[in-house]
């Protein structure tokens, strides 16, 4: 059973978002996603300062099974990326909601966050997949 923390927001593409006090968001892939991918061997992150549109492929997570795109969950600017993943992509597997975060963004439109899934809705999606 994969973990779905209740305080986070989710997308149907298995990404999570944590809304910080300053209104910026941290993005990563969910526990379910990391388990499905298997052990990661490479993570490609977006360029800091770049503008991304919702749904744009902006990062890549690669395991021995597959390389998968990570889509920008909202439109906005990439403020920071998790550079530790360059040497240690396994952090995404070990701690997907913590040290395994991918990037921080400034949302272009704060209202867009309301369209994301909450933990219950994401859990329902996982149940359906099972």
């Amino acid at each position, binding site marked *: 059973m994969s973990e779905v923390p209740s305080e986070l927001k989710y997308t149907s593409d298995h990404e999570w978002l944590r809304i910080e006090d300053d209104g910026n968001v941290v993005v990563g892939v969910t526990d379910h996603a990391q388990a499905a991918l298997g052990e990661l061997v490479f993570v490609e992150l977006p360029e800091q300062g770049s503008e991304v549109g919702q749904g744009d492929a902006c990062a890549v997570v690669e395991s021995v099974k597959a390389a998968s795109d990570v889509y920008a969950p909202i439109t906005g600017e990439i403020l920071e990326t998790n550079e530790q993943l360059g040497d240690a*992509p396994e952090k995404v597997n070990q701690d997907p909601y913590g040290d395994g975060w991918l990037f921080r963004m400034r949302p272009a439109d704060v209202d867009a966050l309301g369209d994301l899934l909450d933990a219950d809705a994401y859990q329902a999606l996982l149940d359906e997949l099972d």
Partner: protein
Amino acid sequence: MSEPLIFEHSRAGRFARAQAPVAREDVDLPVECLRTEPPVLPEVSELQTVRHYTRLSQRNFAIDTHFYPLGSCTMKYNPRACNTLALLPGFRGRHPYAPASHSQGFLACMFELQEMLKGVTGMQAVSLTPMAGAQGELAGVLMIRAYHHARNEAHRNEILVPDAAHGTNPATAVMCGMKVVELPTDDDGDVDIGALEKAVGPNTAGIMLTNPSTVGVFERKIERIAEIVHGAGGLLYYDGANLNAILGKVRPGDMGFDVIHMNLHKTFSTPHGGGGPGSGAVGVGARLKAFMPIPVVGRDGEHYRWLDEKDLPQSIGRLSGFMGNAGVLLRAYVYMRMLGHEGMRRVGEFATLNANYLAARLKAAGFDLAYPRRRASHEFIITLKRMAKDHGVTAMDVAKALLDYGYHAPTTYFPLLVPECLLIEPTETESKEALDGFVDAMCDIMERAARDAEHLKGAPWTLPVRRLDDVRAARQLDVAWRPEEAGA
């Protein structure tokens, strides 16, 4: 037992006198190009060398030794006659710079191969130049691009790719400067037509499709897809990876495709190398004829000649110095001539029959087909999601266990949209007994998963190399032998 590297057999001063050059030749190279130290080479006897490589060759899992149902790769038997005839001295000794008047036999074979490929795919012209499937794909999308540029529609830069497509398709589109728009697949494996209608527009350059698709089913709405894409001003690209399934039965040209690449090393039975030499011949319809890669072989009366820039001024250019991988093309030529039209139809029929027989038997044995409502094409997918959930035995464990039974593993974890999947392609060249043997092994593995999962998780047990740490191999890639690290 593992075989040491050839370098580890090395002893200083040992060599094979019979193989050594008798005289040292002076070469006329600029001094800055000459090496200052001798190369690091293993110092071994002739017998040691023979034994080393013979032992390694005995460890191959090959079509010549094992059933090899590697989905999406069409690992069929390569008839010996193709090899023998491609090695006739007249072919082997022909210099690529020999004038066309001295190469009429070879050029005639290439011309006829172009004609046969045209006939079997329903396209209007064929270029044999691309050196491998990837280059064939590149040629295809470059032609689509050249077509739009020639029509002053250079803004068309979107290539539609179904999520069931081969992974190379989006990669090729990006290489050609295109933007990839992914299309979803419906529950029965067809392209989602509603999503396609929404995705096409003034920027559509084309769509890349494999039919039958990578999920192992025939795209039933192909004519509607062609209508929508052509209606939007885009072109249709056919990935020939799965041509084996429809050979002699349905032709991509008749489905509305404008360009196709053919993996001759799959459908036309030339050997699969470790990445080459392959052949990615391309066929084109009327819209793209002018843009074909060169050289192409043409015929003036009874005389064959090379067609180049002068004949095809709008060509996307030269993709190989001479005639692609000529030896591979010759093998495909012999194969097609041996089969004839009737034989090619039987390839498609038996490839499909074998796949459906295997699928039906595995289903009856309790395995889950990924698309149970569909008839398989030349390959099919089973999902081991249930086995993974109930016993913790994954598709990779089953793949490794199959090696212990003497079967090459099917393709694992591809296509990505089916969890814990095995993509199985038996090809037409296997006997019923071989297929039944594979089913027996799969049933044995299934029974073992419930009783002794740990055994499967440790497989393979009987091969010289046990389960590899693929994660470590990817993270710390190290493929070069270095004398300093070996302490030599």
